[in-house]
Structure formats: structure tokens, C-alpha cells
């Protein structure tokens, strides 16, 4: 499921010449699960090696010679500082993650450049590397490179020992479902939806899951299923921001039309017309989300 360069969106097809301008946006290479595994293994080896080295050095210092030697104390201090330094890089990268998310949201090109430099850092804790890869998935999703975003999400979901990165499981599954729906992979979307139903979610994520499930049901023509619990669904849709609320109403209206419930279709359609702009309605009509 790795994106080939030829199938990248137009803005990604042209490689940027980094040498021409020092501020030119740098691009991440196409995602490869084996590269991620290599990087995780390399980080792990560096960190474990450093820890073992420090421990052995400490034991050697402790076992030979009498205490009180200033040189030995200085060496111990050096060891402590080395360990702090090793963790400082990871801590700094972890601290930059929230800022990186907002940059990816507002300026994907700048976000990608920042992501490239952060991913080049070595000896990162495993969870920090996984969080950075998660941001890469978000970036690709935003760039509408759904093949790659699905591949990254799938890899992250199956990577063992995620540590604190496990808290992003719900988001990754949502991203995976959406990417597969965009790729019209109904089976893959269903499998991810089943997994999502077993994952504890916050309110915002639960609302997104409802919208994605509705979209899946429309894709596989299960209109009756979509209309079950309609009142609750519309009430929950009202909690979403206006465009998402309008889009969900559009999907429900489409399901009502497919189910032959014209009165309900008219009612929901009139809400869509108030909630969505003309452009959004045209886009939904073209995408088959509204009839």
C-alpha cells in the first residue's frame, strides 16, 4: 500500500531542489514500514547501548579503586549528564509535537519541513518516533494522499509496544477508516470500523465515528441501517461544527431518498440547505453524498 511517486498528488510530484534555496520546503520520503522498523530498532539500540554502557562504567568505577577520587566523581557526573542529554533530545521533540500539529494544520508545507528535521534526530524514545510517524500520517491525509496515510496508520496500529502513543489509537483508526472510504475499500473500512467500535473514544472522536459509519453504510447501500436511531443521530450531528453537521445531514437525506422516504428526505434536505453553502452542496452532489 505504499504510494508510488507517479501517483502522488500534483503538488508532490515535483521534487524540490533543496540546494537552490536554503528555505525550500523539504519533503519526507514515501513511507515504508521496513524503514520505520529500522529506525525504531536503531533508536532502541542506541538507547539500550547507552544505558548498558553507563551502567557498566558505573560498576567498573565502583569496583576499582577507593572512593573520594575527584576524577571518578567527575566521571559519574559526566555519565549522569550524558544520560540527561540523551533524554533531552527526545523530551524536546516530544514538547514540539503539539506545535507541530498546529503547523501541519495551518501550513502543511512548513509542517513537513519541520517533520523532516525532527525525524532525522537519533536515539528518540520509541513512543516519540511513533508519534512523529503519526503526524506524517496526518500530513499525508491532509494532502489527500490516502494510500500512504492508510499504510502509515495500518503500520502504526500493528506496531507493538506503542507506550504513550497508544492514546492516539482512536485517531489512527478514524484516519484509516476515512482513507479507506476515500479509496472505496469497503471491506478495509468495515474492518477498521469494527476495531474502532472496540476502542474507547472521546466525544469528538465518537461523533467522527458516527459520521464515518454513516458514510460506509451509504457506500454499501445499507440505507435502512443508516436511518436507525435517526433522531439521536441528528441530535449528535448538531454538536458538530456546521460543515460536518451539514455533511452528516446530507448523508442521512441521501439514505432517506434511497429508502424511499421522501418526506424525511425533504425535511433533512431543507436542513442541509440551511447548514451548507452552495459550493458545499455542489461538492456533495458530485461526490454522491447528497441526492
Amino acid at each position, binding site marked *: 500500500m505504499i504510494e508510488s511517486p507517479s501517483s502522488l498528488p500534483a503538488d508532490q510530484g515535483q521534487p524540490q531542489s533543496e540546494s537552490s534555496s536554503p528555505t525550500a520546503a523539504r519533503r519526507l520520503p514515501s513511507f515504508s514500514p521496513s524503514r520505520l522498523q529500522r529506525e525504531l530498532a536503531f533508536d532502541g539500540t542506541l538507547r539500550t547501548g547507552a544505558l548498558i554502557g553507563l551502567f557498566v562504567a558505573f560498576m567498573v568505577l565502583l569496583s576499582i579503586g577507593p572512593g*573520594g577520587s575527584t576524577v571518578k566523581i567527575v566521571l559519574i557526573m559526566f555519565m549522569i549528564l550524558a544520560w540527561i542529554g540523551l533524554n533531552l533530545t527526545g523530551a524536546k521533540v516530544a514538547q514540539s509535537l503539539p506545535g507541530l500539529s498546529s503547523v501541519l494544520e495551518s501550513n502543511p508545507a512548513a509542517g513537513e519541513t519541520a517533520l523532516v528535521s525532527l525525524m532525522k534526530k537519533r536515539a528518540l524514545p520509541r513512543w516519540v518516533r511513533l508519534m512523529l510517524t503519526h503526524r506524517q500520517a496526518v500530513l499525508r491525509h491532509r494532502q489527500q494522499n490516502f494510500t500512504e496515510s492508510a499504510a502509515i496508520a495500518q503500520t502504526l496500529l500493528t506496531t507493538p509496544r506503542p507506550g504513550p502513543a497508544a492514546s492516539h489509537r482512536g485517531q489512527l483508526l478514524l484516519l484509516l477508516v476515512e482513507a479507506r472510504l476515500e479509496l472505496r475499500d469497503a471491506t478495509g473500512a468495515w474492518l477498521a470500523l469494527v476495531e474502532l467500535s472496540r476502542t474507547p473514544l472521546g466525544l469528538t472522536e465518537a461523533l467522527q465515528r458516527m459520521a464515518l459509519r454513516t458514510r460506509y453504510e451509504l457506500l454499501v447501500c445499507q440505507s435502512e441501517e443508516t436511518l436507525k436511531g435517526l433522531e439521536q443521530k441528528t441530535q449528535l450531528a448538531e454538536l*458538530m461544527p*456546521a460543515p460536518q453537521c451539514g455533511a452528516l445531514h446530507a448523508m442521512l437525506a441521501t439514505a432517506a431518498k434511497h429508502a424511499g422516504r421522501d418526506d424525511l428526505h425533504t425535511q433533512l434536505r431543507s436542513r442541509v440547505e440551511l447548514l451548507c453553502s452552495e459550493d458545499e452542496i455542489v461538492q456533495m452532489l458530485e461526490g454522491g453524498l447528497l441526492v
Partner: protein
Amino acid sequence: MNPAIPPSPDAAPPAWRPPTPEALEAHLQRHPAITPSPWARRTPLFVLGGVIFLAVVMQGPAAWLLPWLALMGMILYGRQKLMARRSFERRLARAQELVTLRHHRPALRSAWRLIPELVQHPAQQHRAVAVLAHALDNVGAYDTAIVAYDRLLNDLPSEHPGAIHLKVQRAIASLFTYQLSDADDALRRLRGPVEPLTKTPIGASYRFALLFQSVQTAHYAEAIDESDGLIEALRPLGVEAGYGHALLAWCHAQRNDPERDDANHAQSWWQRATTLLPASALRARFPEIKGEFRGVPRD
């Protein structure tokens, strides 16, 4: 009340009342946010430095073990702080979810309790006060909500988009409490900053505030004259745009000029409003709209 005697099962529960502005003011003053000084944040490092110094001057096994024990202590201290932070974050997220789900009273209670616990975490306390302000606004305690908005505005730079939104919300709350000159001042000052935000929820709230101002000052004809593009302007509010449609319906009903077909206009705006929100919700928010529009069913 004697605690030995249980309350009668028929006894009505005590009526719930939102906190008064004075109570909130006192609560916020008792628990002001304390920004930790950079020195306080670096305390663990100073402790570590001190321990290392001691290790250099001391002799024997203590000299070897002390730095490692200090490092271990630092890690445990950091971990404990992180756990406490995560626990606050969870509770705050829950309060925000409650307010999003329109469970305003539990959200209010939760945010009220969190404020004293978050004095060491200014950003999180700010969020708790934001939940409080939103919940107070939605339970109709506008005077108290204004106190919360003032506190939030105090924490933000005036050009911050969040501050602009809060100022609009505050102006709407002032209109509800008939502090009309206060609201008018605020809305005039916001005209410029809101200009680039027209197609956002902030711009939509501002447009709603202007419409509401016209209603509260009985300038119905003016509100109608300026209603071009109202549907588009209020759209970012989602279903809450229905409140604006209801206000315009009310304006048409109040002007009620047969030559300008106000009755029909009132009907169509009311229909739009009730497409988005139930009539009961509209009347609960604007008790003025109690009367029946000509030719418009009540629900």
C-alpha cells in the same frame, strides 16, 4: 435541618440556582492562577546540582550513591507531576464534553470544582473558566457569565482571535441583561477586528450580536433592512443559526407592515428557524417570542 430525619419523599428538591456574579468573583479571587516562576521549574535541577556538589565533597559510599538517588528522585517527581497533570486533563476534557453535550449544570459543577485545583496550571484553569462561562451563558446566568468572560479576557492578548470571540460572547450576554450601552461600545470596537473573520463562527456570532442588538433596542426595521445575506452570514453557527432566523422573524412580526408582506416574511423566517431548532428552544432562549406570529403555528 436535623440530619436524623430524612427529607419527606414528597418534598420538592431545592431549586437549582446558578452562582451569583459576586460568588463567582469571590471564587476566582480566592483561587487566582499562579504562573510558576522559571526558578521553581528548575528546582529539581538545582537539587541535583547540590547533591552532586555534596557527592564531590563527601567521602565513602554515600558519595557514589547520592547522585544516582537524586536522579531517581527527579524521575519519580517528574512522573508524579505528569500523572497529576494527566488526571486534571481528563477531568477537564470531561467537563468540556459535558458542556458540548449541553449538560450545562454538571459541566458547571465540574468546572467550578476544578478551578481551585488548577491554580498551579494557568492554561488549564483558563479552560475551566471557559467551560464555566459557556455553561453559565447557556443556563441564562448572563450576569455571572460576564464575570467569567472578563476573567478570560484578562488572560488573553486583546488581538487574539479567542479574545475577539469572547468579546462578542460578552457583548451578547450584555444584551441579554440590557446593558445596552456597554454592548454597543463593545460591538463598535469589534467592527474592525471582526472584518477578516466574517466566514468563521466568530464573524457569525458578531452578525448575530448586531441583529440581537437591533431587537433589544426595538430597531426592527433596521434589522430587516440589514438582513441581506443573513443565512450565509449565520451559517457557521450550525443549528444555532436558528436563533438568528427566529429573531428576524420576530422583527418582521413586530413591524407587521401589510404593504411589505411582513406576515409572510415572518412565517418563512420562523420556518427556517424551526427547521434548525425546536420552537420550544427558541422561546426558551428569547422569552419575548412568546406571542404567536400571525399565521405561524406555535410549534
